């Protein structure tokens, strides 16, 4: 079935395509250009409109800020990666205070062994690859240190973003980082907590993905 279908479909398409020349490619649309402050402003505004909690902080205070946000929220465990720079900083500055703060925990083994546990973790923190000002979204390239489901299964997702990595547009980050040469297993744009309007077009947040998205922007300027 497979190859016969393939050959027949392609034969029909080739026959039809050969009857007209290729249409020339169009030039890319111009990329929106904002300055640094505008990028930060636009990203913050658009993502907040999608009910993302955004905190602009700096590399010294960010863990304190996170602690303040998570304090007394009755979150038991916070999933993090001990293998990233951010994870190490977090671990070093995270007090053991199980009454007020979630305990740090890390991913164990392959998803097959870890799945049941993962579905019972309250929150996860990940790094980001960058962000997009034009549409308001963070960019994630999950990897072996920070698997794909960290930003999906726990009801609270905290993402740490460096302000210098906010790009003007999606097109710009694809071109600047030469994505086509090295696409990862999975790349993601995330603009807020999961949502739906499938019932009477009423917008409701927190469906299958996280109910909350908290973005900590580390601004060194």
């Amino acid at each position: 079935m497979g190859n016969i279908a393939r050959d027949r479909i392609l034969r029909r398409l080739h026959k039809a395509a050969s009857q007209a020349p290729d249409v020339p490619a169009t030039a890319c649309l111009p990329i929106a250009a904002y300055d640094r402050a505008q990028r930060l402003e636009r990203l913050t505004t658009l993502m907040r409109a999608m009910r993302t909690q955004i905190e602009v902080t700096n590399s010294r205070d960010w863990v304190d800020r996170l602690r303040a946000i998570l304090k007394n929220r009755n979150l038991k465990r916070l999933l993090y990666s001990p293998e990233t720079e951010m994870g190490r900083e977090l671990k070093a500055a995270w007090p053991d205070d199980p009454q007020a703060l979630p305990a740090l925990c890390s991913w164990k083994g392959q998803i097959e062994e870890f799945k049941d546990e993962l579905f019972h973790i309250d929150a996860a923190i990940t790094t980001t690859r960058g962000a997009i000002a034009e549409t308001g979204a963070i960019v994630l390239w999950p990897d072996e240190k920070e698997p794909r489901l960290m930003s999906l299964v726990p009801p609270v997702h905290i993402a740490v973003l460096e302000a210098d990595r906010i790009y003007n547009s999606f097109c710009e980050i694809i071109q600047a980082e030469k994505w086509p040469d090295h696409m990862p297993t999975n790349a993601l744009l995330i603009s807020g907590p999961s949502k739906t309007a499938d019932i009477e077009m009423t917008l409701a947040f927190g469906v299958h993905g996280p109910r909350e998205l908290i973005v900590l922007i580390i601004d060194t300027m």
Partner: protein
Amino acid sequence: MAEPARFDFKKNIAKALKDRQLRKNLRSAMDGLRIKRQDVFDDAREFEELRRYGNAVKERALSRLPQLLEQLEQKCTQNGIQVHWAETTDEANQIVLEILQRHKATRLVKGKSMVSEEMHLNNFLARHGIEALETDLGEFIIQLDGETPSHIIVPAVHKNKDQIARTFHAKIPGAPYTEEVEDLNRIARTTLRKKFQAGQAGLSGVNFAVAETGTLCLVENEGNGRMCTTVPPVHIAVMGIEKVVEKMEQVPPLLRLLTGSATGQRITTYFNMITSPRKPGEKDGPTEVHLILLDNGRSRIYADPQLRQTLYCIRCGTCLNHCPVYTRLGGHAYGFVYPGPIGKILTPQIEGLSAAGDLAFASTLCNACEEFCPVRIPIPALIRRVRNESYAASAAGAIPGHGFRRNLMEIMAWKAWALANSHPALNRLGFKLAGRIGHLLPAIGPLKAWTQVRTRPQFALKSLHQLAREKGVPNG
């Protein structure tokens, strides 16, 4: 649910128009969607530029469709994605079944996919003892009620929250009766989380497939699509062969056009780009990813330069929201998977004119669909093409079933019309007759469809020509 045994469009229309609840539900949803879309494309010039680009990208991609599909196949294979080809929906169903059986999977979790609707996959799998569970909230709701989607983007748009509350209470074990949207969402979330965890395979559609990288792009808000494509060990993606684009850098404008037109969003919550199965060292994601490329009539549509434009469609559903016919009928009246303006041109081409050609006649040709289409598909021109082919003689048509409406009465009527308009004496006689007995046009036979709902025309007793001559206006 399978297609109705015999598609009776007129009966469906009458039923939909009488359904007050449906009309009310549709009205508020459609108004809302149009306003949101307008807000996100508030700069008319920018929108025109954007959709010209979208149109050019699709035109270019389709002009190289076979090459791009081969490139996509090659790249996907290199990345470890297994590519399958299916000429028909039966073949595609069979491929899905074989993959699931190989993994002894009986629980499939599904993200929203119109191609899987086209395949009637859920029913097919149910017959083989496999539970295919819809996880998009709208799809989940209608699956509980054994219905099909009534809209490409908002599948449960025909229902209001009271109806959904009753469905949940009756069909989900332990679900309390609640009309609060937040609570209804919570019930769905709790129910489906267990299903994601237990799913043995996941199935999704594809919004764009990028040939240069072999990347499958998925657009969604809820996170169920990411669940289906990440949690289970096997991911099967089904796509129509027309969804391939050339380059990654062409995706952002198409994405903006899609989300803006579909739901009035600048971007959806998630844009999910999948390029390979789990690599060594990675800790999650499916270990197997399959891509099924479905033809189902598309290569035939492709062969005709005008009809090919049907394949530009990115399934945003905005033509439905702007159609004066769809917004009053809803999707079920159309009887097939794709309703509204795009359905009127796509369905007859896939299913053949004798099965679905009537769809093209439910249009006022008001042009709203073309004006709002983010990739500038000339839908009204294509509707006229489908209509013409419905009457075309012998081999003049490219759509299967052409000439199905051809009948002696109409042929004779047009012959008479041509004769009367090419012979002055006959023409004069015609006017005389019209003036005297034209108002007596009977409400029977083929005229009934017109006369039963309209005031009969009053023809003038004297023609303008005659009146002018009587006033002494020189002839010439």
